[in-house]
């Protein structure tokens, strides 16, 4: 029996036709093709040693002789595997270790301990073959030269990454089209607005068609329209090129729109790794009930009492938080006893869930927040 075997080619699909059809049922003892993870982190640690100086003359004199340093564990025993083509959201409050991790993944920072592999490479070796296949976009960092038009920087990028001209043209046209760059290209970069610059910055970072994209706050400081634009673009880029994307963002809209999978870290430790929906399930065992009433909103308190909690009530619109397991019971009760115009049951906003994740972590953690910093002294 003949069955088609689908190889996902690394780029474009040009070599698809060259693959001879193979019969998966033939038993020639070959192993099945293993998927090399795009990103593989195991027990990763990064510790910064920062000097501790107390104020005052005596203290600074003391520090001449005896230097006190404090270890900050920015990333602490982190293990993650990301498969090719995945779009993963990397979440955590400020200082959680997200950027540090992305920098280790792109070879800018050396790990203190543990293993990092990106496309099978060890990033800290900064091999050219590795650097050509990745990109790191950091909020305000620039690949674009400030004083010249973006198009000149693009050309330089092409030459540095040795992108063949026809391929470059194609990619550039695609990026110009997707990001609507045409009017921006001839202007000196310093004359562009933040959002315009960000678009150009993203474009330049993708001209070499990286297989792995590390995006650190790609939408920070942008207005809602521009955020949506960039979001759509990232999704489209992932779809077209099958690129792996690891992105951090403080905007939950980004994460909801782009990431099936989320990784949550806090104090450099992994808190959660899984589907966005299971994150909601796990950290928010509540539903939000919004009820619109003709009248009798004053009576709703009694109905809810003991089951849920009224969060807002105005002009006949009542919002209630209710444990998931009691949702049906309460809905039934409300519908039976009150003149309901409309009723919706929703998961709580993801922002609330994330906030709860960190709140829970703070409560359940036995050690105080400073516990991950250990002080030691050296002579």
């Amino acid at each position, binding site marked *: 029996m003949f069955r088609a075997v689908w190889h996902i080619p690394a780029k474009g699909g040009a070599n698809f036709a060259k693959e001879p059809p193979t019969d998966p049922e033939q038993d020639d003892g070959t192993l099945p093709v293993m998927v090399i993870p795009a990103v593989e982190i195991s027990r990763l640690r990064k510790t910064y040693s920062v000097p501790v100086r107390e104020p005052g003359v005596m203290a600074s004199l003391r520090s001449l002789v005896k230097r006190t340093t404090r270890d900050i564990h920015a990333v602490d025993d982190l293990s993650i595997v990301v498969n090719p083509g995945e779009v993963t959201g990397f979440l955590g409050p400020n200082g959680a270790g997200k950027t540090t991790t992305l920098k280790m993944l792109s*070879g800018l*920072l050396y790990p203190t301990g543990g293993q990092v592999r990106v496309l099978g490479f060890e990033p800290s070796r*900064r091999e050219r073959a590795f650097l050509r296949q990745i990109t790191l976009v950091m909020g305000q960092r620039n690949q674009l030269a400030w004083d*010249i038009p973006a198009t000149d920087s693009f050309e*330089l990028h092409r*030459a540095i990454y040795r992108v063949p001209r026809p391929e470059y043209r194609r990619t550039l046209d695609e990026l110009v089209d997707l990001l609507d760059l045409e009017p921006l290209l001839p202007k000196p970069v310093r004359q562009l607005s933040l959002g315009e610059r960000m678009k150009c910055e993203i474009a330049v970072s993708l001209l070499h068609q990286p297989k792995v994209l590390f995006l650190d706050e790609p939408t920070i400081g942008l207005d809602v329209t521009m955020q949506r634009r960039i979001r759509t673009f990232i999704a489209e880029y992932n779809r077209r090129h099958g690129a792996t994307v690891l992105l951090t963002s403080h905007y939950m809209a980004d994460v909801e729109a782009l990431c099936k999978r989320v990784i949550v870290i806090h104090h450099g430790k992994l808190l959660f790794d899984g589907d966005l929906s299971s994150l909601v399930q796990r950290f928010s065992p509540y539903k939000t009930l919004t009820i619109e009433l003709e009248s009798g909103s004053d009576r709703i308190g009694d109905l809810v009492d003991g089951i849920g909690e009224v969060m807002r009530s105005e002009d006949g619109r009542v919002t209630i938080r209710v444990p998931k397991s009691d949702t049906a019971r309460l809905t039934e009760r409300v519908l039976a006893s009150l003149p309901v115009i409309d009723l919706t049951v929703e998961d709580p906003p993801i922002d609330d869930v994330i906030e709860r994740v960190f709140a829970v972590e703070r409560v359940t953690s036995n050690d105080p927040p400073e516990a991950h910093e250990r002080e030691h002294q050296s002579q």
Partner: protein
Amino acid sequence: MTEWVDMYRAQLATTFATQLQYRAVLVIWLLGLILSPVISLVVWMTVATSGGGQAGGFTAPAFAAYFLALMVVNHLTFTWIAWEFEYRVRNGQLSGLLLRPTDPIHIDIAANVTYKTITLVIVIPTVIVLGAVFEPAIEITPVTIFAFIPALALAAVLRFLVEYILAMVAFWTTRVSAINDLYYVPLFFFSGQLVPLSLLPDTVRLIGLALPFRWMLSFPVEVVLGRVQPDDLITGYVAQIGWIVIALASRVVIWRAGLRRYAAVGA
């Protein structure tokens, strides 16, 4: 190879376009560069005139020739890499450059070449005007030019590398300007900027022989003025190449160590 040519072409185009944005700054930099040798020139011409027509074998017109040639060579060999590098490390720009699959040194080489090319447009007329004013005693022959060009090129390469190495202290400390000041004192003294090296006391000259400074500036000046004997010319080239090899090796080692440091403390 063609890829390298392509990269340099693009790199040069970028730095060229960037530098043309800062025409006023270019002129100010140049003024400083011209002023210092002109002051030395006037001082030493006065010394020579008052000392009975010459000082240490230099007549007033010979001093004029020396300092004008020095001005040109200094212009063609100086770098500003220390400031640039410190800025890059401090504001994190270096991280962006390190993501690229090429050594950031190529940007600096390109920037240097374009800057020198652009500013020659001002330097050459300036030298001609100053030449008309100070009437230097200089006889430029095809032979001296032929000997001068490699000496100048090697001096430029060596000075670039030495100053690049110095710039890399930015990986370890934020006090780069202090280190720079420490460097400029011996450079000024031993590279012939203060006075032609042949006028220095013997002991000081001996110390200078063990240092790379002469090969970064003074040597090509001496060559173009015809003050170097053919035998010494070859020795000079060899010394320049030797120092370049040492500098290249140091650059590789220090660059690696610097990156390790940068990547350890937070890029």
